[in-house]
């Protein structure tokens, strides 16, 4: 069984997907494919037993686990518990586990050094019993166990045989290779001897285990029909426990191999029904080839439970509605209904658009929807048939978990815009709701979604109905909820968009931004809201205001930007505009930011632009951002007094150069509102323009050139100006296009800028000219042309 399943599973992972794997993933939304929780308000774990959880609605094969990896370990706990109770008082649990399982941590690579020798020891103990001769292992264990005890002997002898079968039943390690698809157990004598032990035993515990071992051995043998024969012969005398259902799934697997699909599916459904541990396996293995197989299987079902089980697996392969209808008719108390209902509701949720935006085609910005538009769009998506079905079941109140149907109905009514009835059904659910944390939170969440959905215009009165829940969602849950299951993230982000839309319709730009932060793009944290100075000032006024209302407080708390970030942005903008006193004033209101140190000396100007080299170079003084601005201010004052014009102009040119994209001080502008990135394309257009513009720097270099007194000084100024000319050339060639894919590859890396020409023509006798030749390849190439 295990192996058949394993191989079928792998078939899915490769053959079906082969080399277009990546593409399929890409169109399904990449790695987020299974992040159903982030688009859902309905936590399936609230409603269905844990054994169903891999079968919850999911984008990958199984929910939460991706695909089944427990082929070799699914029953480890059962086995350990069974034997521990059999051997109680004779062998301690650690030793029982040691012999049974050995090393539990799974090995992915076969080269582990500390392999436990439990299997070899069992072999030795078997030899000891057989030959009645002490060996090293028996000596070792006789200190701890009474090896003469009958039960211990039984345990060892059973393990010895079980181990033999394990050599073919355990799946191979990842990086090793078995040349056959499925190993078979060829020792017919050994199988017969196991069956013989079964026949002679009277102890029910051992007899049951030998019965299963016989089934297992026959299943892995090359005459699988014998497994079915043995099963049919003995089935009636066997207790209907986990071992029985494991054996039954072997029978189902053999039938599948024999292409008797209807029988196989029917038996898988039986196991699904009665053996929770095997729900994942049987749901996966259930494969009617066509409708005839499916109908035949239905006919085989002997009672309502078996029919319901067939529909329960069928529902996993979609059409949950039909499955629920059928099962409900057969047995309204069936536990299978619970997981199917969660799938149905989760499926409906997936079509809901929570973004308050609409796609308008490729490469077009998304259209913002009004609250009414968004509601109309979503209300049309609620499947009426599903709603009616759930309403019917909820009204009857005769299921295993009535609250599931009441809550589902209420939630769908919320989505449909029927808020009053939703409230009623939530109230109704309370009567049967279990007193668990998850159930309580689920109810609260759905009530909140309903309450917020009722609001079309914010008033002081209706605001009060949501405040506590907003606090709960934004502040309490992220701190206090330690579990994984509860799906509240969607309500959290949806409610922010909802509130933002409410404020947008009111014309309140600040609160719109507070609840709906406008990020520039997924990759970049820049925020274009602040490109408009008026709203920037409004936002500052809002954040500074001390008498905020409750909802304003909540909003300000979740808003990621603080006053200091806005001041920082203003400081940077003023600096680029060369309004230094203003910049200093803003910088002083940035908390710790003003003390951030530049990584390189921002007043240096080099032949090569290499910020890494300049960060690594020795710096006598490390400039903080505020020092930097104050120093600029001092130099500008001196310049105004015509003091040391050449030096001050040159250093100012360097300073303004270094805070651009081309300089050594990018950290000056890399802040949340502007954005981060080593390429100008990471920034929105307004910011891209600001950080790549070297005009201010060039202006100071010109001034320095005019004031220069020596030819060396002049040569230096001319070269530094040519760097600004070069950057301008890059800006128009590369940075003005939308994406670097659009750049024409014309192989022209540089042209003869004016600075190059002048330097070559008039300053070839300077030492600086030689330095430039040594360091700047472009110039060297130009000169050698």
């Amino acid at each position, binding site marked *: 069984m295990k192996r058949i399943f394993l191989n079928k599973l792998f078939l899915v*992972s490769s053959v079906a997907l082969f*080399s277009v794997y990546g593409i399929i993933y890409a169109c399904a939304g990449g790695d987020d494919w299974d992040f159903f929780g982030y688009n859902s308000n309905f936590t399936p774990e609230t409603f269905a037993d844990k054994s169903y959880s891999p079968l919850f609605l999911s984008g990958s094969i199984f929910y939460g686990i991706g695909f089944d990896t427990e082929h070799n370990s699914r029953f480890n706990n059962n086995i350990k518990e069974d034997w521990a109770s059999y051997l109680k008082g004779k062998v301690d649990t650690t030793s029982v586990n040691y012999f049974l399982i050995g090393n539990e941590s799974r090995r992915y690579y076969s080269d582990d050094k500390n392999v436990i020798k439990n299997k070899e020891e069992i072999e030795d103990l078997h030899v000891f019993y057989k030959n009645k001769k002490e060996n090293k292992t028996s000596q070792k264990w006789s200190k701890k166990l009474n090896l003469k005890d009958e039960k211990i002997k039984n345990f060892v002898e059973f393990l010895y045989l079980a181990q033999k079968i394990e050599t073919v039943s355990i799946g191979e390690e990842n990086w090793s*290779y078995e040349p056959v698809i499925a190993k078979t157990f060829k020792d017919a004598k050994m199988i017969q001897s196991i069956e013989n032990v079964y026949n002679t035993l009277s102890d029910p515990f051992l007899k049951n285990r030998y019965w299963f071992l016989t089934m297992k051995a026959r299943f892995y043998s090359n005459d699988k029909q014998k497994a079915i024969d043995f099963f049919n012969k003995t089935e009636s005398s066997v207790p209907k426990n986990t071992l029985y259902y494991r054996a039954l799934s072997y029978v189902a697997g053999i039938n599948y191999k024999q292409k008797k699909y209807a029988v196989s599916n029917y038996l898988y459904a039986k196991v699904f029904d009665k053996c929770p541990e095997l729900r994942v396996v049987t749901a996966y293995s259930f494969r009617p080839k066509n409708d005839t197989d499916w109908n035949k299987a239905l006919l085989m079902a002997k009672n309502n439970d078996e029919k319901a089980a067939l529909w329960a697996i069928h529902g996993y392969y979609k059409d949950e509605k039909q499955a629920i209808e059928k099962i409900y008719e057969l047995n309204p108390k069936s536990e299978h209904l619970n997981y199917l209902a969660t799938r149905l509701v989760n499926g409906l949720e997936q079509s809901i658009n929570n973004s308050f935006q609409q796609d308008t085609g490729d490469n077009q910005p998304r259209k913002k929807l009004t609250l009414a538009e968004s509601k109309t769009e979503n209300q049309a998506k609620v499947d009426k048939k599903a709603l009616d079905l759930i309403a019917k079941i909820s009204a009857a109140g005769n299921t295993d978990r009535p609250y599931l149907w009441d809550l589902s109905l209420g939630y769908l009514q919320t989505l449909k815009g029927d808020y009053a009835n939703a409230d009623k059904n939530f109230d109704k659910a309370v009567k049967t709701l279990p007193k668990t944390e998850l159930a309580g939170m689920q109810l609260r969440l759905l009530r909140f979604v309903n309450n917020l959905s009722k609001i079309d215009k914010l008033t002081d009165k209706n605001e009060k109905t949501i405040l506590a829940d907003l606090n709960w969602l934004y502040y309490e849950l992220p701190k206090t909820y330690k579990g994984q299951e509860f799906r509240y993230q969607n309500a959290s982000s949806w409610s922010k968009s909802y509130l933002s839309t409410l404020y947008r319709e009111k014309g309140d730009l600040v609160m719109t931004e507070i609840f709906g932060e406008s990020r520039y793009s997924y990759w970049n944290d820049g925020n274009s809201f602040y490109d408009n100075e008026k709203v920037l000032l409004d936002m500052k006024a809002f954040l500074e205001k001390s008498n905020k209302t409750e909802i304003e407080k909540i909003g300000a708390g979740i808003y990621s930007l603080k006053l200091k970030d806005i001041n920082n942005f203003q400081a940077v903008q003023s600096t680029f505009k060369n309004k230094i006193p203003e910049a200093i004033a803003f910088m002083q209101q940035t908390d710790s930011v003003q003390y951030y140190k530049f990584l390189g000396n921002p007043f240096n100007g080099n032949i090569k632009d290499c910020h890494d080299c300049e960060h690594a170079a020795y710096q006598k003084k490390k400039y903080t951002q505020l020092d930097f601005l104050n120093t600029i201010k001092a130099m500008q004052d001196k310049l105004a007094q015509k003091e040391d014009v050449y030096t001050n102009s040159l250093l100012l040119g360097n300073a303004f150069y270094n805070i651009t994209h081309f300089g050594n001080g990018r950290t000056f502008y890399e802040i949340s509102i502007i954005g981060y990135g080593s390429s100008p394309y990471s920034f929105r257009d307004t910011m891209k323009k600001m950080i790549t513009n070297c005009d201010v720097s060039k202006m100071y270099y010109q001034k320095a050139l005019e004031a220069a007194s020596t030819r060396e000084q002049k040569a230096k100024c001319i070269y530094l100006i040519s760097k600004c000319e070069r950057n301008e050339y890059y800006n128009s060639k590369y940075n003005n296009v939308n994406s670097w894919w659009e750049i024409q590859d014309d192989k022209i890396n540089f042209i003869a800028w004016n600075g190059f020409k002048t330097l070559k023509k008039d300053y070839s006798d300077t030492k600086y000219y030689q330095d430039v030749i040594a360091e700047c390849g472009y110039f060297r190439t130009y000169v050698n042309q």
Partner: protein
Amino acid sequence: MIKRIFVGLFFVLLVACSKNSDVHTSFYYWKTNVKFSQRERETLKENNVHKLYIRYFDIGLHPENEEPFPISKVHFAEKLNEFEIVPVVFIQNKVMLKANVDIEDLAERTYHLINDINGKNQISCSEVQIDCDWTLKSKDHYLKFIECFKKLSKKKLSATIRLHQVKYFEKTKIPNVDSGVLMFYNMGNIAPDSLNSIYSRKISERYLKSLKKYPLHLDFALPIYSWAIHIRNQKVLGLRSKLNLSELKKDKNFEQINATFFKVRQSNYKNGVFYEEDDLLKIEAISSSDLVEMAKDLNENSVQKPNEIIFYDLDEFNINNYEKNIFEQVVSCF
């Protein structure tokens, strides 16, 4: 009438290619269990195929520990003594995208597993092929993997090359292999739209011009597979390969609504897949004339003749969609 024009045109296209060619015909074999059907065996014989590219395993990331691991290792139910076997390993790009992946270790494991498979099936090979749709972000890892693998294997090494990797080779770089195989398919997205994701001349034209500049020797891989894309509510549920078109046309549960789309009339199970009412199946296939068109376009746009044309993939189901001499016709275009 239309049909006759079509046949006439088709004939002209075929005639245009019928010259003697020393380009070899070969196939990819992508099933996990190597066992030829009668028809497959005949195809190999009729086309004088000596070389087979067999998928040995994929490498993906383990869902639990995120470590690279081999998926669906190949098994042989067939002795392949008369063929030269080239093991192909498909590496999912996400393996190469993983930040802390140990490339040297991965190359070593891959090398040993190939050897193990060869050894246990008495296969000796003189070439290995690596298949990976690497991207700018995974480029460094992939190139390093190729270097490490080459050092270990000391055999001829080839790699599959996608169209975008040819056009932007200065950015995506070229792996250090002895030769490449241009995969002339997978040109679009698996999507609910009406385009063909396997081949589109419009898309291929954007890339063909770059072929002449590509510095690595290229052989060509051409598609003969078809599949249906299973769509529900405008969303792709998955690929249904090996779906028999004529059988589908007869099936009362399905209704053909135009040349490419089938609609599910009533929910049903077919080949073990559950189809819900109103689901769509979009059929994507490659016609004989498509194949000839591809061959001609490739031939016109390449500087160097390929040594071989590899068809993807050898499967009775695919072969049955074409005339017997299709492979000969296509290869004769080079």
